[in-house]
Structure formats: structure tokens, C-alpha cells
């Protein structure tokens, strides 16, 4: 068989695999789109292209587990952004699929990639039940790796709308009850013998899959009391909850850990920005981590500033977060939490989403020199670089 892609060896760098301590002077061997070997003494097959990376740092590609990449070019322009309109009259649209909005050719994505991102969970916004997310690798060719990745529920902002949170929770329970009834009575439902349900057949079908634990449910929730309510609803309906936001999570960290609910957190959220986040703290993520919660970091809805994810992790380290855990929180853990088994780590069999850095990836004075997505090097020049080059010429 003819090899379509050469075998590439990233040689001599400090390699953070996403698990355990870094390997010094190690080599990562990439064949086609996969990692085939990693370690200090790797035999190289004939014809291997060797990239000498002495002094460089190699990490798995970074992953933002709650992103808006590919669904908005210019946020203020209605025609250039995938809106969340309709929240008020259509607060439940479980069947909405964000891949229908996703643009693989977005000009925002290269900027994120130049900051070391190689994958993202792209999420729908708005309403109470916002729809289903996707896992994408940040390439233009077939970027979507998984659809119906998770169902997204929001208990903040327009999820609550102008009503009370009690009403939002009531509606959520009603929706789940309808879906439960639907799930065990599909026949009667189709023949019109079931009582009237409050949702469309498409929505019911998706909710039924969440009830069967086919997909996890991401609950966006901040206030400590709301977190407990969400955990109770998840337990009642045997859902697989993932918590997003969780600004006050440190107050109920033990309960979150006991429920085995992973969290997606912005560790820099330390401002009491709303009445749902009055207990925001810089060490929120750290306290949950110490309580045994699986914590991944997110910039929460970022697109144009998605490249900042690594700084968020670095600042978490400055506040006491263990270094390797912080790196895992933007590589291995987001992949694990969403069940993408071959991303987020550098090990044999893993998809070769890899970043080469010219220093500590958390430091603002370092940057990626090479980014590989699915084994292929990505052109790191952004439109911003082209503008800079154009105007570097004497004026």
C-alpha cells in the first residue's frame, strides 16, 4: 500500500502527553493522521521526516469544551452571526442541531488555531433547551467528528427569560416528563392515543435519547442552589449531567463530586457580575478540583478570543492549580468528558492533534510554532498576520 502521508517524527522536545509528568527529550511519531509512538528511544522507520525540536515544548492540541467558533464572524452584525433569536416563543428546541449553523470556513477559526486550539465543542445558545452540540476538529475538510454530542440546557440568562427560575425548572421537569412518557409509549403516541404532549415529535425524540443516556446533558448553571436543583433533576431522570459555568460551584463541590458530574469552568471568573455569580472566586476551579470533581476549563462562548484558553490555564496555575492538571483541563479532560477517546492526549492510536510551542505554553511570551490537526501541519498565518505584513512595508 502506498503511504499517502509521510511519517513525521517530532524529535527532542519536552512532551506533555496530557497524562502524567512530561517526557524530556522525547519523540512523537506521527503516521498518517495518528500518533503511533511516543517516548525517549523510538526507532524511526526509513523515510521518516524528522523535525528537530530541541528546546521546544509539545502538547496535545488545546480544546475548548464550550465554544462559539464557526457560528459567528462579526458578533454585532445579525447577518454575520448565527443568532439565538426565538428564545422567548420557542424556549425548548432540543432537536436544533448546531451543525446546521456551523461554517468550517469561518475566518475566526485560524486565529484560534494560531493560539494552539485544535478542537472545540460548538454549542447552541438561547432558550431553556438550546439544542445539540457538535465536536469539531479545527480543519476545513470534514471538521465535524460527532453530532448530537450533548443536549444543552440553560438555567441562566434567557433560559429563565423574564420569568422566575422556579418556572424554568417547572418547564424543564414538564419537558422531561413528556419525554419519559413518549419514550415508553411511542406506539400510542403515533396512533394518537397518548395525551397531548407539550413538544414536537422531533424534540421528544432527542430528549428521549438523553433520558436513555445516549447523550449527556450540559446544564449551564451558576448559582449554588441552582446547581443542587439541577443535580436532583439529573438524578431523578437518570441523566448524565455536565455542568457549565458553575461560578458558585466551590460552595457545593462535594455534592458535585458525589454526583460524578464533570464541570466546565472559566477559572478566571472572579467577578460578581450578576446575582447568579455573587460568590465567584479565583480559586473556584481549584476548590472543585481538590474535592475530586473532574474540571475542564472553558472560555465559555468564546470565538474571537478563543486563543486565550492557554492563558486561563496559566493563571489557574498561578492561583495554585497543579500544572499538569491545568494542562489536562484544556486537553485530556474535555475529550474524556465528552467521550472522544482518541483526542486530548499524545499516545499511540490517538489522533495527531498536536501543538509545538517555543516555550511554556501558558506564558504570553511563548506561541505555537507548529500545529498539527489530524496529522497534517496547519498554516498558522492568519488574516491578522497578512495585514501586519502588508503594513510593515514602508508607508
Amino acid at each position: 500500500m502506498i503511504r499517502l502521508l509521510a511519517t513525521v517524527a517530532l524529535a527532542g522536545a519536552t512532551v506533555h502527553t496530557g497524562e502524567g509528568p512530561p517526557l524530556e527529550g522525547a519523540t512523537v511519531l506521527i503516521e498518517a493522521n495518528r500518533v503511533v509512538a511516543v517516548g525517549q528511544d523510538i526507532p524511526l522507520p526509513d523515510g521518516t521526516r524528522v523535525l528537530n525540536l530541541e528546546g521546544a515544548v509539545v502538547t496535545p492540541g488545546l480544546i475548548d469544551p464550550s465554544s462559539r467558533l464557526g457560528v459567528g464572524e462579526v458578533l454585532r452584525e445579525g447577518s454575520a452571526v448565527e443568532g439565538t433569536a426565538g428564545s422567548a416563543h420557542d424556549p425548548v428546541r432540543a432537536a436544533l442541531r448546531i451543525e446546521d449553523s456551523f461554517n468550517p470556513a469561518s475566518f475566526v477559526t485560524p486565529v484560534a488555531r494560531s493560539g494552539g486550539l485544535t478542537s472545540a465543542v460548538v454549542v447552541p445558545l438561547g432558550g431553556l433547551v438550546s439544542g445539540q452540540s457538535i465536536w469539531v476538529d479545527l480543519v476545513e475538510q470534514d471538521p465535524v467528528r460527532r453530532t448530537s454530542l450533548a443536549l444543552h440546557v440553560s438555567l441562566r440568562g434567557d433560559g429563565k427569560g423574564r420569568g422566575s427560575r422556579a418556572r424554568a425548572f417547572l418547564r424543564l421537569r414538564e419537558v422531561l416528563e413528556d419525554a419519559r412518557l413518549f419514550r415508553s409509549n411511542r406506539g400510542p403516541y403515533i396512533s394518537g392515543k397518548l395525551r397531548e404532549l407539550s413538544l414536537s415529535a422531533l424534540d421528544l425524540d432527542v430528549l428521549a435519547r438523553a433520558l436513555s443516556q445516549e447523550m449527556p446533558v450540559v446544564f449551564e448553571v451558576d448559582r449554588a442552589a441552582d446547581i443542587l436543583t439541577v443535580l436532583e433533576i439529573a438524578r431523578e431522570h437518570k441523566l448524565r449531567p455536565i455542568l457549565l459555568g458553575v461560578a458558585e460551584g466551590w460552595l457545593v463541590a462535594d455534592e458535585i463530586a458525589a454526583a460524578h458530574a464533570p464541570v466546565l469552568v472559566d477559572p478566571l471568573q472572579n467577578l460578581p457580575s450578576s446575582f447568579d455569580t455573587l460568590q465567584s472566586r479565583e480559586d473556584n476551579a481549584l476548590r472543585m478540583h481538590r474535592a475530586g470533581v473532574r474540571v475542564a476549563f472553558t472560555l465559555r462562548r468564546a470565538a474571537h478570543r478563543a486563543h486565550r484558553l492557554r492563558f486561563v490555564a496559566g493563571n489557574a496555575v498561578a492561583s495554585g492549580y497543579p500544572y499538569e492538571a491545568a494542562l489536562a483541563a484544556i486537553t485530556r479532560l474535555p475529550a474524556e468528558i465528552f467521550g472522544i477517546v482518541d483526542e486530548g492526549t499524545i499516545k499511540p492510536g490517538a489522533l495527531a492533534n498536536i501543538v509545538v510551542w517555543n516555550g511554556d505554553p501558558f506564558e504570553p511570551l511563548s506561541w505555537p510554532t507548529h500545529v498539527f490537526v489530524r496529522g497534517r501541519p496547519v498554516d498558522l498565518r492568519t488574516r491578522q498576520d497578512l495585514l501586519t505584513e502588508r503594513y510593515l512595508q514602508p508607508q
Partner: protein
Amino acid sequence: MQMGERRIVVLVAGLIMACATADSGGPGLEGLEEGRGDLVLRGGSVMSAAGPTLENADVWIREGKIHAVGADLSVPAGARVIDIEGRWVTPGLIDPHSHLGVYALPRVAAHADGNEASGPFKAAVRAEEAFWPQDPAIERALAGGVTTIHVLPGSANLVGGQGVTLRLKPGLSARSMRFPGAPSTMKMACGENPKRVHGTNRKGAPATRMGEVAMLRQALAHARAYARKNEDEEKPKDDVDYEKAALAGVLSGKALIQNHCYRADEMLVRLDLFEEFGIRPRAFHHAVEAYKIRRTLAEEEVGAVVWTDWWGNKMEMLDAVPANAALLDSAGVRVALHSDSPRDIQRLNQQAAAALAAGVRAGLDVGRDRAIRWITANPAWVLGIHDRVGTIEPGKDADLVVWSGDPFSVYTRADLNLIAGERVYERAKPRGRPLSDFELGIRKAP
């Protein structure tokens, strides 16, 4: 004098913070016991923003001013000496564009005091008169090593109103925090915001960019006529037109124009318009395309106040480049970084590092000793307080930050902020950390 009131606030806050403080802080700084007399920061890396970084140097503070800087200074017996070996000192950071206190947290309708959007010209309004000193964002900014902020009205209007330069030394009013002697400033805006707010949203004027320029031209002409009619400033008036009088201050050069403007072409139009009246803006803020006209800005001595990496929110933000600051600096423009955000004001030093790195990546290494000026000396110039603060030089006010390490590292934290030689924040000592009245009894202890 508000000293008595302030002391009570700090003491009460101290008691609360003793059990409520977030992180345990870094290693303490010995020798900063309460007291007067000379203070010496001994043996640190001094990044003065006025030249090369001095290793293992001392900063000697006397009566609130920097008295001397150098290696092995012989200081008088009885001076308080703080060993800062391994630490770094920089001038206190200055954020030339902030809405702390006028868009205070929590972000609720009741706290939206930054835009008097009831008309496109509001020169008479003053940010100082809306500023809420209990904004809980203030103490987080302090922890980021910020000692001075310029609080501005928002950008809804063509003329948004008067800004105020404050020292981050928490008090009970903006007045008590005012930077002594700082010139007055006038916020103006061009581009998408004024025409959206007044045109698109309210079906009024201006509705276009050309409308914006025409209306401002007319307002400046009216202000000029008003100023001529009222040349004798001493004469008491019973029919003061505060709107025109404030704009006349811009024409006389008394108030520094701080002009929100993104696009290169719009900045050039603005310069032409101001030229008609014989004036120029002190600085363009949010100037994401300033790099395209950097030589003009340098020649005209107009400052550029920019972000490191914000882009894409609006069409006029599309051509932002992270090397903007480095390009501007290399061309001789006074460039400052701003936060415009209660989140990013906490890490201006990291923004400077990222902007420096973007320059290096583009082949322009301006060096750290220039980049530190983007958050110290240059914003001081933009605000007209550069004779007082912004560098570590004898005679300047002792507004300083002692950092746990290299200020351009993500792992470094501000250990100590001094304003006029007085401690306003100390990471290791909860007592040195204020807490807003708002969070008192709300913020829970771990």
C-alpha cells in the same frame, strides 16, 4: 479631607477580609510596619519604564516621592527597609480607559451609569458624578497592580462627557480618589456606536458617519462662538451654557480629547475636522487600525490607546492585529494598552507581554523596557499626568508595584501597591486588602 472616613472603611474591611480572603497570598514583605519616614525597597529588579531594567537595585522613597534609584544606596538610619530580592518593581499600572464605577458590578440596569444616551452631545456630564466607589471590581483591579484609572463615559454619544482620572485608593467618593492636578478630559466617539444608538435604535441623528462629522463640526462651531462671547472667564454668569462651556474647554486645549475611534480612515477624517478648529485629540482609543496610519499619528503627536487582541465584535474591529502596539511603538507613537473591562484590567501586565510577543513574532522586538511603558509611562502621557507618575525616577510620585517575579510572566502576582509611598494593597496581608461595602455580608468565606 476624607481620611477619617477612609480609615474606618479600611479597618472594618480588614476584619472581614481576615476570614474571607480568597487566596492566602504570597510570602509577606517584612519591614513595612505602619510608620512614617523614608522607605526603601531594597535589592529588586527595577523596571523603571524610563530606561533599562536595573538589577539588584534600590528604590528610596521620601515623603511620598521617589528620592533616589540605584544600586546600594546609602540610606539614613531609621529608614524602613523592605528586602525585595527576587522581586520586581514597576511604576503603578495605569488603565487609560475604564468604566469601573460607572458600569459597576453586578451588571444590572440600576448600575448602567456610563452613557447619557438621551442625546448625541453630552459634554456637560461628568463620569465623576456617577462613579460608584463600592464597585467590587475595584479591589480586583488593585490586585492586578493598577494604581490609576481613567474612568470615561461610554461611546453612545458623539460627545460622551467628561472623564475622570482616579487613584485606586478606595474612598467614599470619586472626588476623594481624584488624581490631584490631572487635566480634565472629554470623551468623544466616532463610528458604529453613535449612529447605531441614535440613528438605528432611535430613528434620530446621527444616522451615518457623515452625519456624525457634520454634527460635531456644527457643535464645535457653536462652542467657539460661545467662547468668544464669554471670553472673560472671571465674569460671573447667570446664564451659563454648560454644554457649550465644556466644549469650549476642548477648543482652548484645557480638556484633553479622548476619542473612541477604530478605523484608520475615520481617524484621518477626525484629524482633518479637528484641524479646522486648530486642535487635535490627545489620543484615539480602541484604535485597532492605528498601525495603518502610525507615521501620521507620530507626526501629529496623537497617542494610540489599544487592546492586545480584541477583534471581530463589530465591522470596525475587523482589522485589529495583535502586533498593533509594537508597530506603533516602533514608529514613535505614544501607545498605551487599555482594558475597557473589569476582567482584563486585572492582567494588564499579561496583555503587555502578549502584545510584545506578537511584535516579536512579526519581526519587531521592541523589548520589555519599551513594552512596560505601554501600561505605565504612555498612559500617563495620554492622561497628562506624566510629570507625576508613569516612571520610576527621582521626583516622581511613589506610585509603585512590587511584583512576585517577572511582570511579563503569567505566574507573577502584584505583592504590594504603593500610592504616594503609602500602601494601598498587599497580597500577603488581608488587612491591606479593601473590600467593597457591597460585598460585605454577601461574600461567603470558604
